[in-house]
């Protein structure tokens, strides 16, 4: 690990993201800073549940019974998720379904090794999901790097970058294991412990520092709304 | 070739129309009423022996005024057309052999005779065949003779123009006198018609013919002079 917390991107920013001078239709010239002008740069907040515990429990039950997985296969484990839709495993009966957009999903399955390049996209997608949201680490690679433990471009410990609720180990784990992991996640949620989103907001600076340490071309706002 | 053929066809087309005219032509046995009027009344009214002259100068005087104007116009325009290209005085004569003695003397002798003949012709226009135009043309032929004999000869344009202008204005004025003192514009009878057949008769006809003669002569001379002088330069 590098000792200095370098925040400055070490790779030149893309032209499209540099500040530029623009001429309006009436001839007035002004500057556009894409990172600032085109992206919301608010920080995430911790959002506690309902005041009433019974309401929160109800919601937690609903959340656990309605797991919408973001359809984003980050690594080789994605291949293990497809069988869940088939008649053999039929994950639908557990209220599990796949959503194509992070806005509507609340479960992110990091399916296997995660390269740094993909991490950036994962972070973006994760941040675009709404609170509460859950992360399942699939396969050994998410735990300690697995067979890529000494690779130059994969991350080793997923929970340094995102709050992980459940790890499903194996290389690769079978779909049954995945289903078991989801059941475990459901239990966690029902118990009111699936607060990964709030954790992320609370320790935002720490997560960001970790992320930026590995992602050298950080050319986006800190939080991707 | 095509052009000749087309021209031939057109000519034939026109010829057919003309043929219809010729074939449909019936010569008159008697004078028609207009001609009859002239034959019966010219002598009595205008006192002119020459009916054609009476018609030309009086009855159809407006035509004649126009005719004179045509010549005036032609002279003016010829001058206009040739004027821009006219070189400096005396620039000509290049290459033209000098006129011989015989030629010079001959033309000098003939010129006054021609002039007198011309004057005679237009002064007697109301009595005999002839008149202002013919006389004027004869006058101009004198000028032509001079020019032929000596192409380098220069006429006094100013004089010609003065004759032209004065006679023209005078012609119009005579016409207006007719309007004022006789039956109408160009009526010759504001002067006495005099004795039938005499020189000084037929009212203003001799006057008008004289003016016409002078004017026509001046205009022809002017045209000739203009053409020659331009020719000179080449």
């Amino acid at each position, binding site marked *: 690990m590098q000792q200095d917390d370098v925040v400055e991107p070490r790779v030149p920013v893309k032209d499209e993201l540099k500040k530029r001078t623009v001429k309006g239709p009436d001839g007035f010239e002004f500057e556009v800073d894409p990172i600032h002008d085109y992206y919301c740069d608010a920080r995430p907040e911790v959002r506690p549940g309902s005041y009433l515990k019974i309401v929160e429990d109800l919601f937690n039950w609903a959340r656990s019974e309605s797991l919408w997985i973001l359809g984003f296969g980050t690594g080789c484990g994605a291949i293990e998720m497809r069988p869940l839709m088939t008649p053999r495993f039929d994950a639908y009966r557990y209220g599990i379904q796949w959503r194509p957009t992070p806005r509507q999903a609340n479960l992110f399955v990091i399916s296997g090794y995660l390269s740094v390049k993909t991490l950036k996209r994962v972070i973006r997608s994760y941040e675009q999901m709404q609170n509460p949201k859950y992360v399942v680490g699939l396969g050994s690679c998410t735990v300690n790097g697995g067979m890529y433990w000494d690779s130059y471009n994969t991350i080793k410990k997923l929970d340094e970058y995102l709050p992980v609720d459940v790890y499903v180990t194996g290389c690769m784990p079978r779909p049954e294991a995945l289903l078991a992991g989801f059941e475990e996640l459901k239990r966690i949620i029902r118990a009111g412990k699936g607060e990964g989103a709030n954790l992320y907001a609370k320790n935002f600076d720490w997560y960001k520092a970790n992320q930026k340490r590995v992602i050298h071309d950080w050319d986006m706002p800190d939080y991707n709304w | 070739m095509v052009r000749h053929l087309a021209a031939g066809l057109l000519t034939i087309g026109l010829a057919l129309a003309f043929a219809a005219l010729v074939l449909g032509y019936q010569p008159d046995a008697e004078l028609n009423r207009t*001609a009859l009027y002239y034959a019966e009344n010219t*002598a009595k009214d205008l006192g002119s022996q020459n009916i054609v002259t009476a018609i030309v100068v009086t009855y*159809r005087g407006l035509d004649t005024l126009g005719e004179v104007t045509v010549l005036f116009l*032609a002279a003016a325009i010829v001058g206009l*057309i040739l004027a821009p290209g006219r070189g400096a005085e005396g620039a000509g004569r290049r290459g033209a052999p000098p006129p011989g003695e015989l030629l010079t003397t001959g033309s000098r002798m003939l010129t006054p005779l021609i002039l007198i003949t011309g004057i005679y012709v237009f002064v007697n226009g109301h009595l005999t065949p002839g008149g202002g135009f013919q006389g004027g043309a004869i006058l101009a032929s004198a000028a032509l003779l001079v020019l032929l004999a000596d192409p380098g000869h220069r006429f006094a344009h100013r004089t010609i123009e003065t004759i032209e202008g004065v006679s023209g204005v005078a012609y119009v004025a005579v016409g207006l006198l007719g309007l004022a003192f006789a039956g109408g514009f160009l009526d010759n009878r504001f002067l006495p018609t005099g004795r039938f057949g005499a020189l000084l008769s037929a009212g203003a006809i001799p006057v008008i013919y004289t003016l016409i003669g002078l004017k026509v002569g001046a205009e022809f001379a002017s045209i000739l002079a*203009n053409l020659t002088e331009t020719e000179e330069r080449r």
Partner: protein
Amino acid sequence: MITLSLAVGFALVLAGLYGALTNRNILRMIVSFTVADTGVNIVLVAVGWMRGRTAPILDDAVPIAEAAQRIIDPLPQALVLTAIVIGLGVTALMLAYAYRLYSTAGTLDVSKFTELKW
């Protein structure tokens, strides 16, 4: 007799026109027109002519009283005088034009003066 002179007149007119339509040379065209003009004048005079009569001058040969029976129609003669003079004027004008055209373009070919068209 009269038909003959009419025919001659018209023939001249047609010949002149044919010449004017077929000759490219401007001077030749002008000459053609004078020929045609002459034809017209002959036609004019011929129309006024009447068999067995004399010129309309009331001298000794034609007493005033008999004028109506003795003279030919004087009017065409007056007209032809005017026509001749006018023809002359136009011819002079055309000649002057021919000169001007030649001096500017150096040619007398009428088909060369087509800058203005369409």
